[in-house]
């Protein structure tokens, strides 16, 4: 055992990464595409005046929770967002929000079709399962290295690393939700002569919706948990503030920025959950 040479796995991965960097053009295209999405979010957040932003968030919550009013959440949003404004973290917060929303959007756009595919094809399911396990359990730091190699420094590699880390729940829950649709309902759809697509969007997706939404919610929370790590490769936001505070050994400002992340997390979580709660 001791005489056995070490498997050069690390070297292999390095060569793979080197080889991949030949596809500069491709990565450049992806970078500009992702950059476009990120800039669009950020542009919108930047032009909205802060008080109006707070009102919009509360108004949206008011509308989403119309069947089941959540006054506590509205009060929390008001106080929480005022706190972030007051602490001077507003722009950091919107940057973090941009990162989380971009990553979640990509996780949804890629994850839901992948989940559907896995639910309808056993071979795909067999490949997707270990891949998702791997993506989620590999320490998130590890993604930073290739992300930087391919996408440079800044928001884009941050989003890429976040997407990889946060996508598995969306894929898994989509697959689960579709597999859980009772057989008789599938039979009913078939017996009336549904096509595969009709079955998907009239029966399977509507019935899997709560499960899929729960997956998206989890993905969003995972993306948020990536913000401090992403800040190490230049993804700006609240994470950067925490990262700096750690570097300067400032417990106070670290805590203040951390609290802002917690507030954002709670608002995102409760709002997406409320979206899922309107029964029927």
């Amino acid at each position, binding site marked *: 055992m001791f005489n056995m040479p070490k498997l050069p796995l690390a070297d292999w991965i390095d060569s793979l990464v080197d080889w991949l960097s030949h596809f500069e053009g491709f990565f450049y295209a992806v970078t500009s595409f992702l950059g476009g999405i990120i800039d669009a979010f950020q542009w919108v957040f930047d032009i909205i005046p802060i008080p109006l932003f707070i009102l919009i968030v509360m108004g949206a919550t008011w509308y989403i929770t119309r069947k089941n009013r959540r006054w506590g959440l509205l009060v929390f949003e008001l106080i929480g967002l005022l706190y972030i404004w007051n602490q001077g973290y507003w722009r950091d917060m919107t940057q973090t929000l941009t990162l989380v929303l971009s990553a979640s959007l990509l996780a949804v756009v890629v994850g839901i079709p992948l989940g559907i595919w896995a639910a309808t094809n056993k071979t795909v399911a067999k490949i997707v399962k270990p891949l998702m396990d791997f993506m989620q359990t590999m320490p998130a730091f590890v993604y930073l290295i290739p992300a930087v190699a391919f996408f440079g420094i800044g928001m884009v590699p941050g989003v890429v690393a976040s997407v990889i880390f946060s996508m598995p729940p969306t894929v898994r829950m989509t697959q689960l939700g579709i597999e859980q649709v009772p057989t008789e309902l599938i039979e009913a759809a078939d*017996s009336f002569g549904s096509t595969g697509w009709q079955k998907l969007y009239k029966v399977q997706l509507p019935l899997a919706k709560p499960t899929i939404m729960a997956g998206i919610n989890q993905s969003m929370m995972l993306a948020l948990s990536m913000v401090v790590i992403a800040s190490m490769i230049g993804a700006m936001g609240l994470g950067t503030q925490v990262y700096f505070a750690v570097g300067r050994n400032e417990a106070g400002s670290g805590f203040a920025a951390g609290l802002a992340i917690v507030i954002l997390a709670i608002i995102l979580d409760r709002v997406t959950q409320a979206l899922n709660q309107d029964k029927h």
Partner: protein
Amino acid sequence: MSTKIEVKNLTKIFGKHVRQAQTLLEAGKSKDEILAETEATVGVDRANFTVEDGEIFVIMGLSGSGKSTTIRMLNRLIKPTSGSVLIDGQDIAKMSKAELQKIRREKFSMVFQSFALLPNRTIQENTEFGLEIQGVEKEERAKKAREMLEVVGLKGYEDQYPDQLSGGMQQRVGLARGLANDPEILLMDEAFSALDPLRRKDMQDELLDLQANLQKTIVFISHDLNEALRIGDRIMIMKDGEVVQIGTPEEILSHPADDYVERFIEDVDRSRVYTVGNVMIPATTVNIEKAGPRLAARRMRENGISSIYAIDSQKHLYGIIDANDVRKAIKEDQKDIRSLVQDVVPTTHIDTPLSDLMDDISSTPVPYAVVDDDNHLLGIIVRGAVLGALSGNEVNVNV
């Protein structure tokens, strides 16, 4: 009548080792032996039957006998292991995916044992489902769905959700959804099992009307023999995936193929299937155009009866003559008995179900006379024969 559905050697084996199981099946092994040897479950074993156009064909059998599997192979929700299903002469196994979808849209509707309603849709939207799949305009399908909901007695529930309705009501939604499609063939898997007795009878009547007016072909699975006898033109009885007997209700009742079928029909309420014709006996009559009081008296004495049916030479029924009146007429030396005829005989027709007479038969003073449309006397119904038929003994079945 043409054949709508033709099933030949239809077999379904579930699980692994299907080939091996099939070989064993053909070698004559039983379902249990095959399960023990190969872990494969025989769902349906070489079933052969036909369903005629406009017929109500009922499938019966104990739980697990393969009824649901059989009905699902008719529209290919389950792919048979072997054998064929022909719909209007077309082999559905040879159809492309698109053709199968088309035939399912145009010819079939299915009503499910467990309702299979979409929980996220209202009753109205559920009822529209089949039409929606066909691409029918919103207005038109809404109208059709409302009509069907009214037929099944659910008017006013359109905007509720399935979980707000009782099991029986949900089952009726399933029925409305199936009917909204206006299919040629209705496949109904225990479609009335969750209904209360009153509703159930209503729905059975509705189904009989549908079949009579619109010539639907209906394949109906039931656990309830009385239901099967009431609505079935023919009944197929299954056991362990095999077809044990196919026949009209009367054939099944009077000539059960084996002990299994016999046990099945043991406690049937026979009044539902037996008609007047089954228990009718010949009447003792006297021809009022020819006979006098003395002949009438002798006939009554010979047969030990106190009254006699009065007919003419063409056997038209006039009424009944009482023994006391005859005796009086003899004393007074009357020659004609026409004046003695009392028109008090209750009459009935040969195809009336016995159940319709049950209430009156014990309270009428004289036995029912069975007459045809021209009032010819065909026979009479005595109480003893009715009770005999109902208890399953000494049945005088004329099949």
